[in-house]
């Protein structure tokens, strides 16, 4: 993939994920292992039609995958694509935050032990 293409895809990905309602939807889909526009709209302060529209945006960037479920579609989060989106930026930094917290804890414990 060329850099330009990657950037375009990432822009769309981030814009899809940048909406609070869509993030809440992803959250619910992850917690419940999937859902439909109807089940999601029952838990969110937006209409079923609005939820369906948001699901369409998430589907286009590959963050969710749809399977037919009766008259509706059932959506699941595409773990790989979400992992990719999150991994790219936020979690690389977070990984180091966590590692540095552990470094701090270990070093301070050693220092205290040496002073005792």
């Amino acid at each position, binding site marked *: 993939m060329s850099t330009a293409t990657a950037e375009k895809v990432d822009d769309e990905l981030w814009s899809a994920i940048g909406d609070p309602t869509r*993030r809440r939807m992803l959250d619910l889909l992850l917690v419940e292992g999937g859902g439909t526009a109807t089940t999601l709209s029952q838990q969110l302060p937006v209409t079923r039609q609005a939820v369906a529209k948001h699901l369409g945006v998430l589907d286009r960037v590959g963050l969710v995958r749809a399977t037919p479920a009766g008259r509706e579609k059932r959506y699941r989060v595409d773990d790989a694509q979400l992992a990719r989106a999150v991994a790219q930026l*936020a979690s690389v930094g977070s990984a180091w935050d*966590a*590692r540095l917290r552990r470094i*701090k804890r270990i070093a301070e414990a050693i220092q205290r032990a040496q002073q005792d």
Partner: protein
Amino acid sequence: MEFGTIEREVFVEASPEVVFEVVSSPDHLKEWWPDDARYEATPGSRGEIVFGDRDAGGTVVAFSVVDVVPPRTFSFRWTHPDGEVAAEGNSLLVTFDLTPSGGGTLLKMTETGFREMGWEVAVLEQQYQDHFTGWDFYLPRLTAYVATLKVRP
């Protein structure tokens, strides 16, 4: 946002000597990062770090020590292909800089090479995160990250 570098700073209430030991020795490294670490803390030493169980599907990653200046600097390269010499363009460079500060140590970490290697490596980094593999960890950070997007021009 700078995509090529990660920078972090933390104040540690311990002497630079102690902090240096914790960031550089393989025995300590595996307390705060991989499950196993095999290398000599000397410049040019080539070794490996292991995520998971080496004999049961674990991931073995190349690890080469670059600079060792106790108690000021420790740096290493990792993620280069097995058998290749670590260099700019094939690996990530992690540098720890230690500065004495008010009875403790200011520890600065930089990781560079993402721009050169591409973001597949960032995904790799994410896979190596010990202790934090669940979405309950990622999602709150996602929200925090997205909030920072709004200040971009």
